[in-house]
């Protein structure tokens, strides 16, 4: 896969992060229709989809180095953003194997993996990493296996142990989350960590999702999309640092809304791991400013309609109460009321 990695931009402070035209067009836009409601909405995670973001098993993009730099900063400040409970060591190695194999296969110009029995040699050229280690022996790596590899892949990850007809979030690397805490949620069961989500419980979404995931098969990963809005392209919107990013929410005006408000899309993947029988949950986040997104006509119109007509409980849970109207007013001029095709593809190949 053709991957051009930019020098790192910032996702905090001066927020120098910008999306190139191709980054904009490859966004996994989350809205199929003009209204939004929770659904189980899982589909097979196969290569290929409405945009290039679906081509790789674990997608990397031009922001690779910026993302990884931000992750390293978060971890230096708060090591509790990466934790794995002791009984999950098999799942750590499963994750390392899966991510290394996927990156080496999908981006061979940037990564290589050579396996000689249990002696593995891993090269990550963009990050200047060249390590030899023994698979299965954690002391031969500079970090524990799960932390080691997730410091080199975009997106947050959790590993879920399957037992007692339930899933338990028994490990995670969570540095770019949409307002939830790994240190608080670590060890929770499926319905518990989804506790705060409104509406979905009443319509049985989580009961069905859990039943489905308990039967997730090895070799048949699935994916779904989730989304929220963020002020500034800030990756670390954690509860821990809420006092740092909270005040930004009151700073949105009609003049700056296009630049400041970002749509944050999560391409979530769920993969059954072979040795541990655990599930690896990948939360690959994409940030795009409204003014960048608005350059895609179909997306501007659809986003306008979705936000204008959203269920108030969902709008509140997504944290957009303060500036929802400002956003709707900003997008309204882009919406000529034309009937749009269902589906998320941009329907244009240049901007």
């Amino acid at each position: 896969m053709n991957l051009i990695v930019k020098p790192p931009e910032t996702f905090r402070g001066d927020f120098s992060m910008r999306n190139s035209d191709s980054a904009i067009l490859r966004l996994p836009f989350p809205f199929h229709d003009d209204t939004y409601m929770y659904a189980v909405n899982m589909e097979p995670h196969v290569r290929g989809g409405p945009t290039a973001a679906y081509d790789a098993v674990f997608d990397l993009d031009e922001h690779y180095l910026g993302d990884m730099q931000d992750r390293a900063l978060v971890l230096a400040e708060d090591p509790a953003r990466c934790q794995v409970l002791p009984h999950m060591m098999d799942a750590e190695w499963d994750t390392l194997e899966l991510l290394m194999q996927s990156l080496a296969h999908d981006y061979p110009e940037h990564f290589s993996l050579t396996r000689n029995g249990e002696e593995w040699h891993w090269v990550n050229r963009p990050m200047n990493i060249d390590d030899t280690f023994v698979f299965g022996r954690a002391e031969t790596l500079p970090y524990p296996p799960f932390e080691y590899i997730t410091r080199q892949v975009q997106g947050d990850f959790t590993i879920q142990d399957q037992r007692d007809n339930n899933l338990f979030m028994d490990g995670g690397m969570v540095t770019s989350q949409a307002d939830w805490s790994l240190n608080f949620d670590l060890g929770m069961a499926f319905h518990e960590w989804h506790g705060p989500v409104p509406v979905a419980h009443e319509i049985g979404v989580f009961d069905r999702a859990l039943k489905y995931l308990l039967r997730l098969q090895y070799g048949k990963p699935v994916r779904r999309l989730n989304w929220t809005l963020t002020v500034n392209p800030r990756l670390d919107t954690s509860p821990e640092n809420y006092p740092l990013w909270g005040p930004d929410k009151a700073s949105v005006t009609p003049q700056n809304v296009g630049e400041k408000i970002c749509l944050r899309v999560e391409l979530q993947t769920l993969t059954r791991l072979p040795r541990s029988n655990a599930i690896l949950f990948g939360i690959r986040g994409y940030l795009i400013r409204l003014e960048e997104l608005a350059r895609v006509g179909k997306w501007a119109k659809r986003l306008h309609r979705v936000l204008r007509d959203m269920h108030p409980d969902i709008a509140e849970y997504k944290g957009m109460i303060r500036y929802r109207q400002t956003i709707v007013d900003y997008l309204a001029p882009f919406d000529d009321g034309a009937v749009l095709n269902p589906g998320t593809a941009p329907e244009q190949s240049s901007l």
Partner: protein
Amino acid sequence: MSKSRPVYQPFRIDPAGRAHLLVTDLSHPTEVENIETWVVHVVAPGIQAQGYSPRAFRSVADLLLTLTSRLAREPVGFRLYAVGTEPFLWDVNNVARAAGLGNGEIFLTHAGSLKRRVYCSHCKTMNEDVTENIVKCRGCGANLFVRDHFSRRLAAYMGVAVDAEVPGEIPQAEVIYP
């Protein structure tokens, strides 16, 4: 209403169990039947209740430590019942899980005060005996809104700064968990 909030059942002995122990942080539990019972009750040093009358511990900490060593000796078929305040129930649960007890062997019943233990998301300090919906963190001073999101592992509710968006704008606290 968060779905992570535990739902408690009334106290009831499980007939499938072979041995039973009830532990409580109430000093005068009303559920005591023909079952071995441990209570937390300040008694004069050196005086202990015997047999099926409640065994009294000087503190919750003392009870939990003794519970750990008791569970290490028990065979499968054991049932543990805890009755009392919410933080106590989940501290017992953690001791029991570490000893190998699981679903169907531990039974928790809430009784007494609704007071909460609140985890500060910002500095990770635990705040005990919280009865209001807003508490000032004893670790970092943040004014925390007490959410309904509950962690069984931490045996605490999540607290998040109530005035993060507009610093200083703090609603009036109310006693919600007397």
